[in-house]
């Protein structure tokens, strides 16, 4: 086995965070581990930017795995690395000997390495293993916040992670059995040829959906955003992208077949997820959790694009090629806006707001090439409108309006002013991503010959831009609570802008009303009760009762007979 520079660099970038994590085994090197945390993602970012496409077989890993630095993996690697560079920087530099910092270093490094493995994995098993590791590492990071809300979010996440991993295990098992292998290419072929597409789609949607925040299995996302530290929130964006969104892209045979029923189902789910994100964002979510709502709406946008690609296979391959850049641009820009929202009061208030608006524009316009592609294909209808993108715009409008009302939170970091700088760096990265995407450059290493394809940009996209800008304004206007009062006090009809504001506030009131009658408290109550039972190491009363029943000899025999009868019945 001979590896060139590129292969060695990829392997080093992947292994480096794990090596740094293992250094924590040596007492003397633990301070170094914390110092290494911000830099653990640097090699991966360099690899994503510089190394040409390659594949690397690891036949002795798991059941025969491999790594691939392809167009999709490269963009996700860059996204994950960028977000972890920033998250790592935010996680260190607190007070010397800080307990939170010390305890967070190990899970953060494990989550970083797992995130890179997700981006680079060329087969289902390695991807699944990395996703599992990333999930539990993120759970540990969330719980390090040590607040009541963070613990509740962590408990919800761990229950959903177990379910997600079980479903994904069954999914990969069924696909691998059908495909006779675990490479993504083989698994995609198995998805295309499956006899039970609805079952496979359900497993996929629920399995990836937990990590991506799809409606119904999203229950951890908003509380996690509302209760964790800034660094963890930035890291969560990378986790959602790599462990959730990427899964669909790797497994769905986009552009290879028409799968209209799946497309319709995903459309419906995307719409519902976006609607829930809007209701949540406009009613009960606080400013921090609002970023979680935006992320949920971005997931809905992603599902919407996947649905479009499945319904129209002629544009499926093009959409699949564009989606990673959408993830990079919107994920990185959202992270920048989260940073700016949390920035400390500075004299550069206007600069901060200007940067926040730039972030908003970058997030909102991220799917523009896909809009253009769809509109050029003549697919314009009410149902075909990009409702999740409108939801993203609405929520971001509210987010920035909220940012104008508060001045950020005091930082415990030794480098509080660094947030503006880090935010600016992320914005630069997102802008570069936007330019690359809009000008039609394929994502490739800088050492590869680069040739731009004809951009998919079209003038018809201007219509979309106008629509999204309108939604953005609506979101902003609907969030200005203080101005609502003045609008109501004055003669609304005399000033059209005030009139619009008043309408927006009425709309916001409706949304709040829907939110109140909505999703009743019983769901949260059940989940919290389940979480409380699950997190209790020994629920005594229940345990004693169950133990008394189970320890009877006849209980074991009854179970045996019941299982035998079930199997006999199933087997005819």
């Amino acid at each position, binding site marked *: 086995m001979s590896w060139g520079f590129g292969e060695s660099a990829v392997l080093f970038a992947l292994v480096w965070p794990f090596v740094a994590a293992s250094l924590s085994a040596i007492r003397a090197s633990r301070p170094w581990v914390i110092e290494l945390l911000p830099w653990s993602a640097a090699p991966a970012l360099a690899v994503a930017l510089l190394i040409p496409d390659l594949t690397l077989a690891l036949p002795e*890993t798991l059941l025969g795995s491999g790594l691939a630095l392809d167009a999709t993996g490269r963009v996700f690697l860059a996204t994950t690395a960028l977000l972890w560079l920033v998250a790592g920087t935010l996680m260190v530099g607190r007070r010397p000997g800080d307990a939170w910092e010390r305890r967070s270093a190990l899970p953060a490094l494990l989550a970083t390495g797992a995130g890179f493995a997700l981006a680079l994995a060329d087969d289902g098993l390695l991807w699944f293993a990395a996703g599992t590791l990333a999930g539990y590492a993120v759970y540990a990071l969330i719980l390090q916040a040590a607040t009541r809300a963070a613990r509740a979010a962590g408990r919800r996440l761990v229950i959903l992670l177990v379910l997600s991993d079980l479903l994904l*295990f069954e999914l990969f098992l069924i696909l691998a*059995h059908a495909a006779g292998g675990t490479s993504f290419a083989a698994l995609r072929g198995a998805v295309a040829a499956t006899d039970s597409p609805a079952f496979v789609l359900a497993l996929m949607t629920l399995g990836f959906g937990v990590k991506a925040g799809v409606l119904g299995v999203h229950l951890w996302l908003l509380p996690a955003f509302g209760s964790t530290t800034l660094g963890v929130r930035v890291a969560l964006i990378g986790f959602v992208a790599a462990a959730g969104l990427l899964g669909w892209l790797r497994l769905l045979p986009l552009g290879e077949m028409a799968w209209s029923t799946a497309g319709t189902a995903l459309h419906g789910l995307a719409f519902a997820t976006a609607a829930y994100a809007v209701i949540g964002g406009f009613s009960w979510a606080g400013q921090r959790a609002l970023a979680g709502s935006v992320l949920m709406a971005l997931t809905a946008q992603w599902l919407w694009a996947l649905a479009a690609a499945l319904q129209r296979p002629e544009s499926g391959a093009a959409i699949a090629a564009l989606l990673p850049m959408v993830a990079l641009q919107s994920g990185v820009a959202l992270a920048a806006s989260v940073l700016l929202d949390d920035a400390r009061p500075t004299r550069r208030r206007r600069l901060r707001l200007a940067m926040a608006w730039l972030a908003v524009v970058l997030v909102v316009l991220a799917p523009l090439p896909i809009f253009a592609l769809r509109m050029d294909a003549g697919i314009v209808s009410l149902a075909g409108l990009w409702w999740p993108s409108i939801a993203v715009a609405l929520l971001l409008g509210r987010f920035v309006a909220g940012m104008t009302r508060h001045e950020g939170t005091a930082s415990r970091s030794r480098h509080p002013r660094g947030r503006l700088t880090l935010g600016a760096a992320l914005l630069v990265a997102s802008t570069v991503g936007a330019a690359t995407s809009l000008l039609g450059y394929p994502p490739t290493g800088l050492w590869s010959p680069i040739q731009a394809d004809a951009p998919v940009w079209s003038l018809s996209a201007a219509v979309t831009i106008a629509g999204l800008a309108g939604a953005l304004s609506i979101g902003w206007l609907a969030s200005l609570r203080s101005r609502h009062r003045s609008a109501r006090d004055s003669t609304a009809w005399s000033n059209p802008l005030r009139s619009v504001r008043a309408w927006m506030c009425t709309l916001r009131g409706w949304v709040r009303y829907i939110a109140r009658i909505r999703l009743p408290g019983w769901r949260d109550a059940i989940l919290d009760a389940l979480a409380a039972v699950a997190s209790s*190491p020994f629920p005594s009363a229940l345990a004693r009762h169950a133990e008394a029943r189970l320890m009877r000899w006849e209980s074991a025999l009854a179970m045996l007979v019941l299982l035998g009868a079930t199997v006999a019945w199933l087997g005819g």
Partner: protein
Amino acid sequence: MTLDAWVPLLVLCSSLVPGLLIFGLDESRVRLRTTLNLAGALTKLALVGVMLWGVAHGHTYEVRIAFLPGLDLALRAGPLALLFLVLSSLLWLVTTIYAIGYLEGSPHRSRFFGFFSLCVTATVGVAMAADMLTFLLFYEMLTLATYPLVVHRGTEVARRAGQVYLAYTIGGGALMLLGIVWLYTLTGTLEFTPRGFVSELDPSHHPALILIFIFLITGLGVKAALIPLHAWLPMAMVAPAPVSALLHAVAVVKAGAFGIVRVVYEVFGVEFSALLGVTLPLAILAAATIIYGSLRAIFQDDLKRRLAFSTVSQVSYIVLGVAIASPIATVGGLVHLVHQGLMKITLFFCAGNLAETLGIHKVSEMNGVGRRMPWTMVAFTVAAFGMIGAPPVAGFITKWYLGLGALDAGQHWVLVVLAASSLLNAAYFLPILHAAWFREPPATWPEEREFGRRETARALLWPPLITALAAVLAGLFAAMPFSPLEWARFIAEQEFTRP
């Protein structure tokens, strides 16, 4: 006798001789006893390594000693035997190191280590037995050698547990003897043969063969803790932690599961077993045990009892893999023989560390223990995730192969059992991990012992770390040559494809 014939005998003697010598040692001869223990364990490991290399390259290690007219005491180290041998000799070394640290300063150590060595001798004999009679002899020797270890503490509870253990295992042994004698009268041989030796019998004997199968599986099922014959195992938890580790990961339970593998593959043959219609009921029994054991584990506050019920559940994966009767599931079942050993021994070592260092015996006392004993809990966490089946720890490989095998055999219900089992495993392991890592520790621990800057004694800390690392490596590099998975594939290939 050739050199190759001597090697199996030397493997037996490498633990038998030190064991007998240790019995005669005075309690104060700590250094000599430790030297004998470690020398025996290292010698055995080296000899097993030689045999592993040899068998992989086509050598056969076999020895026969005349025992009764027409019956030999026969030892043979084939691929299947080697799988169990490598596991038991490797874990014996680690457990010996752990036991030396665990029992430091306690009474009756010569007796303990003497029986400990005899126990491993019997296990090695079970692994290398070339026929049913030899198997039975070592199987019963194992029962007798482990009884003094179970009652080692000498308390009333320990003696009661020992009596229950003896009652169950001797009863099981009697049933096995009955089955073996009946089998011999029908076939005239007891020699383990690839694909079995009973398939040539006239179909009129099939009802008798089904009964023999039931006798043998019931006898072996006692040690393998299949329901409803499992009750002795949680009671035997009163034994010291190294004995629990030995019972659950190295010797007793594994001997039962290994015996079932032998009976299905090399007495009846897997295809003939399926023809007799005994594999599906066996699979259902294993599945019920998996679910029942996990359900019981959830409600145990005593940490070792929780782990014991976990063993009841996990060992049945081996039986399930065998009973699904497909080549891929066979790989899953066989490889779990090793994987479960690595993970479960780690968990018992950790439980022992918690008890010895902080006096923690109950799950409800484990709040915040991860901060006080981080390395122990890292090992525990790795093993617990392996038990749940989370990749890349070894348990995942087992579940993957069992699932694939079930799909291959068209037994889709097994997927539901695997999913339910993983869910239940998570339900009884994750709350422990949550409490240990994320809850606030109490002001004082039940019975804390100080070890300076270290969290516990070195001899107690290294063994779980080594076995936890091995569990990760066995999963992460499952496709490497000589990995447990590759060896299990080698065995399954021989079983299913050899003409």
